[in-house]
């Protein structure tokens, strides 16, 4: 779902499918009072959170713009991601590419990524350079300079990025098709990186339109973690960010989903596929819009079903029935408008994807009929709480959890109350939300299948 300016250190050979699920699960691993965190707001509306952490003399900064791919522009879908790339291209006072070089030559790193809901710029560097990275972020919030000579080669770069991430990867093309089918009207159905034919038409002006509309201090969350105090951050924020004038109020205007009425299926066959798999995604409540505790109950449900190999589906489908080689679930409750609950299953070698799907359907039916046990709920809650404690053992992890949550419309108090709300979930809550979400008409089922090499024409 996220796409970023440059890939990580090594392309992962395996684990594409389950890696995605882990990424969805990670932001959940927080707990009330688990982080020491302090929040304040500058007069121009810029929201600041500080998470002191003294494991090493390092700081991490995340600047979150509350604008992502789902925020436009119509006909130029993906422009948010293109602008993310262009934010490294220089300002009134900083030459093209200088932003990253200033950080590199102090031993830091910097990067950025775009999702449907947010665009996040982040750096990690020795603590004495915090002022520098805050100054440079404040600078590019208002002083970006773009010309066609700079913009057009970068458009070629994102087309290469699309080739590498999507067009060359059958699994990524299937994900794109599942998304496009799951959302009937909401822009979450469009790819974050954009469709190739629209990407080819992006102009400098398109990027500037998005920049001027959304890149305002009152539309930003600044999160800083590491070996700092709130007072140090406050002084630097007042020096560098406070002088930026407040912009117009920014609102998200997105087309909303109608109630779904039909289960849908999509399938992709490719000669390169040697491991077929199935993904089924259901529209679900999210954390932000919930009136009750539905998001938390879905988190517990996912943990019961596939939390580690002790999870119920892994035990039954993979070990006992041997109807699948792998099975997993993921709940993304963080999305701004709509949550999503997904299942993944892979058959054994030479096995039948249809048999894996039938076994999965049987498990879902059993879940809806019999619910979950109190013991399963208690075990899942304990595992989630241990994970929350471990999430403190990181400088960057808590920064990104808070950045994502606040960027997508939740509050710091929501993050801090997460374990308490998880702790309040009951077996009845889990069954109730499962029955509400796991209905065929809420879902799209996608299958990735091998395609036999073409046979010669017969006379």
């Amino acid at each position, binding site marked *: 779902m996220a796409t970023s300016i440059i890939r990580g250190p090594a*392309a992962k050979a395996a684990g594409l499918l389950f890696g995605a699920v882990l990424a969805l699960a990670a932001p959940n691993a927080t707990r009330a009072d688990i982080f020491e965190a302090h929040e304040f707001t500058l007069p121009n509306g810029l929201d600041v959170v500080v998470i002191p952490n003294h494991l090493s003399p390092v700081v991490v900064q995340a600047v979150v713009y509350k604008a992502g791919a789902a925020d436009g522009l119509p006909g130029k879908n993906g422009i948010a991601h293109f602008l993310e790339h262009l934010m490294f291209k220089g300002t009134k006072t900083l030459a093209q590419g200088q932003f990253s070089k200033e950080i590199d030559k102090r031993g830091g790193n910097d990067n950025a990524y775009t999702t449907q809901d947010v665009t996040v710029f982040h750096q990690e560097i020795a603590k004495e350079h915090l002022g520098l990275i805050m100054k440079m972020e404040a600078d590019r919030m208002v002083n970006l300079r773009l010309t066609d000579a700079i913009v057009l080669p970068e458009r*070629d770069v994102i087309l290469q990025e699309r080739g590498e991430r999507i067009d060359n990867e059958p699994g990524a093309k299937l994900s794109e098709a599942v998304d496009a089918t799951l959302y009937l009207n909401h822009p979450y159905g469009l790819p974050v990186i954009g469709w190739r034919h629209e990407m080819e038409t992006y102009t400098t002006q398109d990027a500037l339109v998005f920049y001027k509309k959304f890149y305002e201090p009152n539309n930003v969350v600044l999160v800083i973690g590491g070996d700092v105090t709130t007072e140090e951050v406050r002084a630097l924020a007042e020096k560098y960010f406070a002088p930026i004038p407040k912009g117009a109020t920014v609102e998200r205007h997105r087309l909303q989903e109608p109630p779904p009425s039909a289960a849908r299926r999509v399938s992709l066959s490719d000669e390169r596929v040697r491991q077929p798999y199935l993904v089924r995604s259901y529209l679900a409540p999210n954390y932000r819009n919930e009136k009750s505790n539905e998001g938390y109950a879905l988190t517990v449900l996912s943990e019961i079903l596939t939390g580690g190999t002790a999870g119920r589906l892994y035990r039954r489908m993979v070990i006992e029935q041997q109807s699948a080689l792998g099975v997993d679930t993921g709940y993304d409750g963080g999305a701004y408008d709509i949550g999503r609950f997904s299942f993944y299953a892979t058959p054994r070698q030479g096995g039948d994807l249809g048999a894996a799907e039938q076994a999965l359907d049987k498990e879902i039916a059993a879940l809806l009929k019999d619910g979950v046990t109190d013991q399963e709920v208690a075990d899942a809650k304990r595992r989630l709480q241990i994970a929350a404690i471990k999430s403190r053992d990181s400088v960057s992890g808590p920064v990104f959890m808070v950045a994502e949550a606040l960027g997508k419309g939740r509050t710091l108090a929501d993050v801090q109350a997460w374990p308490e709300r998880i702790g309040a979930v009951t077996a009845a809550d889990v069954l109730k939300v499962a029955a509400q979400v796991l209905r065929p008409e809420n879902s799209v089922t996608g299958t990735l299948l091998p395609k036999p090499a073409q046979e010669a024409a017969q006379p």
Partner: protein
Amino acid sequence: MIARLAILVCLLVLPRWAFALDIQSVKSDTGIEIWLVESHVNPIVSVAFGFKGGSGFDPVGKEGIAELTSGLLDEGAGDIDSEHFQKRLTDHGIDFSFSSDLDDFTGKTRFLRDDRAEAAQLLSLALGAPRFDQEPVERIRNAQLIDIAQNETDPNSIAGREMEELVLNGHPYSRPSDGTKASMDSITADDLKQFVHARFVRSRLLVSIVGDVSPAEAKAFVDQAFGSLPEDAILTSVPPIAPSKAGRTRIVDFPVPQAIVQFAEPGIARSDPDFFPAYLVNYVLGGGGFSARLMNEVREKRGLVYGIGTDLWTFDAGGLIAGQFQTDPGKVAQAIDIVRTEWERMAREGPSQKELDDAKAYLLGYYPRNFTNTMDTAQLLRGLQTEHLGIDYVTRRQKEIAAVTIEGARKAAKRLFDAAQLTFVVVGPADQIQLPGAEVVKAPPQN
């Protein structure tokens, strides 16, 4: 090969003058040396350990056995079957994982401090008495066979295998770490038991611990976890690698929209006195992300790729310098031409003084970023143990980097980079790739 070797890069990142890491060397009652960093911020303990002898040491005909073993050690041990072993791990939230690179078999575990006796007991069973029951063996073998099949049609894997064949001249490290269908089918539970008894021995054990433990608690942990392993066993040796200098270019005809390009030539060993100068000039050419010449020339100026980079790969048996990028088939020739030009220019001129200074500043300034969580710190220490770099390395290496001169860097560049020796592998549709003189082969058949 690219994916397998990524971890090595992490070992090369460097300490900084001002930051002191208090590494204690502690000897347990049974004689096991531990590198220990106490960190009492959170009630969490991370343990990283390893045994010399990774996938590169797999017996001929049993390729993939180290990888298979790494997936089976938490699937039942002693009197505990797979289900109950997994349940004890997850109930306590104990992270437990094993992996194998070419040189070393490694493991790591992270747990809450109150669970350290439970973690030590499970680790002791996993290493000393794994069950290798039929159900988990077949399940994990099946998963590995599917990986093997999937890699046959993955263009990055195809490129990596072709490069190993062209460059490594039949060295044992060019064999598939995942194994082949035939080798995987031949591995029995007895083979696995033999492997464990021959490999997991105290004479080749290295352990680092970081987190909320005292020296006494760390000693008790390792004695319980590793104390009953056998003292020693014979490990066959692997000869030095003798990489090809032939500088060939091979196109593997394969129908993907975007072509994959890998390139490599002989590199430098970690123990070579020129290692830091070589590391720095590689940073300037291709290792330094947006600060590197290749990224600037190929991506920033011309928009030919999304990413391009080079790495020094160091094994116990020698080294390579290698890189990769992806681009449209019609742009492969232009991008390769730029790589060659920059390769030659770096060999001829070396880095500028400013480039060298920036590269040194990066490596010196990076240091504290290695220590932002307990497991990364433990793994870094275990890497230093593996490379025999010594417990004083943290400060010594800063001095060595700072002492690299422009003359030393230029000399290393001349020694390291030779465009004539550079081998290129391109995986993509051959009819769209214009590389005169390149040999064209079909994608290898599936086994």
